């Protein structure tokens, strides 16, 4: 529902912001702002596509809830057609690979710094633009102002991401040579990365809930960074320290990767890729691209259909780590012993497993619950085969694992599935008491009947048996026992030794298990 609304807005934007002049028409509604921006600021030609593309992508990807950062990185790399930058990146990567103690190339460093400088200038220009826009906002409708703000923050984010990537890749060498500019870059980077997360948060909130109160907040947070003067937010500082600690624990140098945090709604969204035209959601980017073909010929070009990051070496990518949005979680960046998650999929699975209800219940055992459907499927594969059960409810596929568990914990004991083993016992016993195969079959049928309805059938059996036992002559009927009638009186004198057992005894026979009474039914 929300998505549709947003699409409407975008369509509206496209109308008001006039015609797209160039670039991919996928980002049609967003592009005008960038064309304006680039034209007015007279930026060097090679920077434009990347920046533009990047920023727009951020915008769209946020509207798609997830995988945005991933795409950002890829698009950033894909658009780095400049050979110089490619070199720089490679060198950075090499530095990363070789390690901290490795000698660094001052030339490469210089390149990086100049690159950073350029970026900062871009940032400045952007902020100028924002300032100029703010005047316009007064005249425009709220919705349009929102849209603009979003776009600018997206641009900002893109620059910040680039900054971070450069600064981050520089970092190992920086540690050994704390020169002024680089140190400053680190400071900036830290701050920026923090804000990046916050701004991302803000954007999502506005996108999804359309709460206007969040809009200015985002702008406020972004503005100081635009000034390039690192004015630290008081709340951010402890968090920064914690992050550093965590990074050390991870054996990843602090800042060598960026921390991204998706929102709960993003994580739980069923689709992550949305058509910007009709709003239809897709789980896979490729499916979206296939879908886009239906919206016009411009989507059928090989470029439009190509995988966005194709042709670029993944080596050059910056390391990305993810934070769980759940406060207090170890996977949350605010946690003292923060352990980042490696991929988006990890984030999704982690969040669902640990912070969501387990809504998928195994249909076989009706006890095991899962929040990730893949887990349920894995469980269902061997559900029932996990026969080694502990009294604490834990099941084991191997007996030795169960016994190791029991040996370890006080009070835990092997759990024996009662009904199952009883069934077997009953069957076996019947087999023993009567030799014949036919009897065994009959009784097993009888027994299974018993297990289905314990009370009724058992009573029935006892009744049957009583009927036959109450009449002792039935035992003797095949025999001519006239011959012992004369002395039988003496023999049966003792009521305990005589027939009296038949009646109390007959009641007992049924008691152990229903099957035992079967002999009288034959």
């Amino acid at each position, binding site marked *: 529902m929300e998505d549709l609304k947003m699409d409407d807005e975008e369509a509206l934007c496209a109308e008001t912001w006039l015609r797209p002049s160039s670039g991919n028409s996928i980002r049609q509604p967003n592009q005008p702002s960038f064309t304006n921006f680039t034209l007015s600021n007279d930026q060097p030609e090679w920077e434009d596509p990347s920046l533009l593309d990047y920023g727009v992508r951020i915008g769209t990807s946020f509207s798609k809830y997830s995988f945005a950062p991933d795409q950002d990185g890829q698009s950033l790399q894909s658009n780095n057609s400049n050979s110089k930058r490619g070199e720089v990146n490679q060198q950075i990567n090499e530095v990363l690979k070789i390690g901290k103690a490795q000698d660094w190339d001052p030339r490469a460093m210089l390149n990086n710094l100049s690159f950073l400088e350029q970026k900062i200038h871009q940032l400045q220009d952007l902020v100028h633009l924002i300032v100029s826009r703010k005047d316009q906002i007064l005249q425009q409708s709220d919705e349009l102002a929102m849209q603009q703000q979003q776009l600018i923050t997206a641009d900002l984010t893109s620059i910040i991401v680039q900054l971070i990537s450069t600064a981050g890749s520089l970092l190992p060498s920086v540690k050994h040579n704390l020169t002024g500019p680089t140190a400053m870059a680190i400071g900036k980077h830290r701050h920026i990365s923090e804000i990046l997360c916050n701004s991302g948060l803000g954007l999502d909130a506005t996108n999804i809930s359309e709460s206007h109160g969040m809009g200015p907040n985002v702008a406020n947070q972004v503005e100081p960074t635009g000034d390039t003067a690192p004015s630290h937010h008081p709340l951010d500082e402890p968090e920064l320290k914690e992050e550093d600690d965590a990074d050390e624990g991870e054996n990843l140098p602090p800042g060598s990767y960026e921390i991204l945090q998706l929102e709960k709604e993003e994580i739980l969204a069923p689709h992550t890729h949305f058509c910007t035209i009709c709003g239809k959601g897709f789980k896979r980017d490729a499916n979206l691209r296939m879908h886009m073909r239906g919206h016009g010929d411009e989507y059928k070009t090989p470029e439009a259909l190509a995988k966005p990051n194709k042709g670029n070496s993944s080596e050059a990518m910056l390391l990305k780590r993810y934070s769980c949005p759940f406060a207090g979680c170890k996977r949350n960046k605010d946690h003292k012993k923060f352990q980042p998650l490696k991929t988006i999929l990890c984030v999704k699975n982690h969040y669902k497993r640990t912070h969501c209800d387990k809504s998928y219940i195994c249909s076989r055992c009706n006890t095991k619950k899962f929040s990730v459907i893949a887990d349920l499927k894995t469980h269902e594969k061997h559900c029932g085969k996990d026969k080694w059960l502990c009294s604490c409810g834990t099941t084991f596929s191997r*007996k*030795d694992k169960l*016994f190791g568990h*029991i*040996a370890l914990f006080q*009070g*835990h*004991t*092997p759990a*024996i599935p*009662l009904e199952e*083993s*009883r069934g*077997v*016992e009953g069957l*076996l*016993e019947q087999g*023993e*008491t*009567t030799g014949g195969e036919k009897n065994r079959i009959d009784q097993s049928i009888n027994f299974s009947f018993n297990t289905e309805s314990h009370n009724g059938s058992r009573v029935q059996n006892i009744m049957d048996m009583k009927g*036959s*036992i109450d009449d*002792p002559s*039935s*035992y*003797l*009927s*095949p*025999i*001519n*026992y006239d*011959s*012992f009638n004369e*002395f*039988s009186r*003496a*023999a*049966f*004198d*003792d009521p*305990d*030794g*005589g*027939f009296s*057992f038949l009646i*109390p*005894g007959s009641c*007992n*026979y049924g*008691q*152990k*298990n229903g099957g*035992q009474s079967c*002999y*009288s039914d*034959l």
Partner: protein
Amino acid sequence: MKKRKIADCGQEQGLELHQNFFNTLSEEIVFTILDFLGDNPLDKKSFSLVCKCFYSIEAVHRRAIRPLRTEHLPKILSRYPNAERLDLTLCPRVTDASLVAISSSPCGSSLRSIDLSRSRFFSAGGLSRLASECVNLTEIDLSNATDLRDPGAAALAGARNLERLWLGRCKLITDMGIGCIAVGCQRLKLLNLKWCLGIGDLGVGLVAVKCSELRTLDVSYLQISNKCLPSILKLPYLEDLVLEGCFGIDDDSLSTLKHGCKSLKALDISSCQNISHIGLFYIISRHEGLQHLTLAHGPPVTAPLAASLRKLTMLQSIKLDGCSVTCSALKVMGSYCVSLGELSLSKCSGITDEAFSFLVTRQKQLKRLDITCCRKITDVSLAHITSSCTGLTSLKMESCRQVSKEAFVLIGQRCNFLEELDLTDNEVDDEGLKSIGRCSRLIVLKLGICLNITSEGLSHISRSCSKLVELDLYRSSGISESGIVAIAHGCPSLEMINTSYCYGITDNALMSLSKCTKLHTLECRACPLITSLGLGVITIGCKQLAKLDIKKCNKIDDAGMIPLAHFSENLRQINLSYTSVTDAGLLALASISCLQSMTILHLKGLTLSGLTAALLACGGLAKVKLHATFRSCLPETLLEHLEARGCVFHWRNKPFQAELDPKCWTMLGDTLQ
């Protein structure tokens, strides 16, 4: 309070009060009298029938109950509120209802021990009630519960205070069941898992981890291997470990043992096929505190292995039954082992006079010696045994055929402390017996297949061996009536006598034996001169008679059965094959409420209907041996009914055999050798 009860008893008796002297006895005195009452359960029964106060005092006094039938269990249990030990071995059929009755009875909470080792038909439900209600249970014998499964074991785990548990032959219990017991009954001190084939390493390992107070553990014939052995040996208090027939344990596992069990005193590693002398080295070297070592049916005992025994400074007894023991090993044991109290070398091949004589001259402290079937041993060894081990209390030398009859004189001359002497299948003669008669402490004397002895020799025994309890004269065909008469006069405490195939035994002999009031086992198979008269007299005199074998006494007929049925209230087992008993006799017999086991083969006078009636009438029957022809004749429903009552049928298909000539038996024995 109790005294008041006695007074009440008196008042109830009203006028008879002044005539009843017993009321003047205090409860304590009556208790003391009861303590001295003998083994015969009927004595206590008669005592309690004297008067009401005796009845009530006896009921309060009794601690152990051994009921015959479970039908009366609720009544019995309410009568004896202080019962602590309940023996249900005479009740073949113990259902869950019986167990529920026990657990809900007033003595349920005071019950400490229950024996279900011969009972069937109970299940997990009853056991769980028992375990939960009888909180003071410390001892349960569930041996032979072959259909008990894991749920039963799990139910048993509810008995938290259990200290002694026997689960022998509970073959269907698996690791899961024993795991429950291990977790639930952590105070176990004794655990017997012999023949529990379903239990493996994991179960035993868990027992060793959880039941740290174990003193005695029997894991014989379990399929356990190296994996659980280390945890067993870590048990801090383990004293007695039986690993008989554990094929999974091999030299490798023993060689990797880093430590032994410090507290271990007795170790049995008999019949472990995969343990060679190397493995034994390891285990012996790690258990220097061992007092009793059993290596029966193991690897050959050689000198190095014997030398390793010298490390066991506390060793008191060693059993090497069925091993091949070399001469050098015997010599090493003689020279290096500490003084042994018990030595068992039965069926050890390779034992010669020279080595054995050397051994016994060094081991002068021997109290018990078993040299059964050491066929190379001659007079020389016996001379050395008797001269050096004068303190022997037990000497078993069955089938030492090389020892001449003159040598047995030495036993009587030198070993006067003998309490148990087994001379089965030996050359001993009357002179020898005359000498053995000096062993006045003899309790058990076995003279089976001693063809050289006669009644005269026995009369020497009877003159001095007044403590004799068990006498075996199986196939010693030289024994006649006078010998038995002499024994009956001289040995009043005789409890078991076997005169099978002593063809000269007559009714007179039995009449004299009737004076041995403690007699509970009488085997007089194939004594053709015995008639119903003799049997009748025996039954009147020997009230304790529990086992009777009169197979092939073909003069015994129904006339003998009627007094038997009337007087022998304790009779539990009888073999009537080849006698002249008919339907009437069998039916009379069926009225003995104790009777549990009957062997009825080749009774000419028995008809189908008579058999049927007898089987139905005899409510306590647990085991019946019948000829296979009856199987098809007896109605299926009857057999099923009896089986449901707890009776097991053994069908035999032996053809009718005429008795062999007594000489023929000895010839047969010679050819076998």
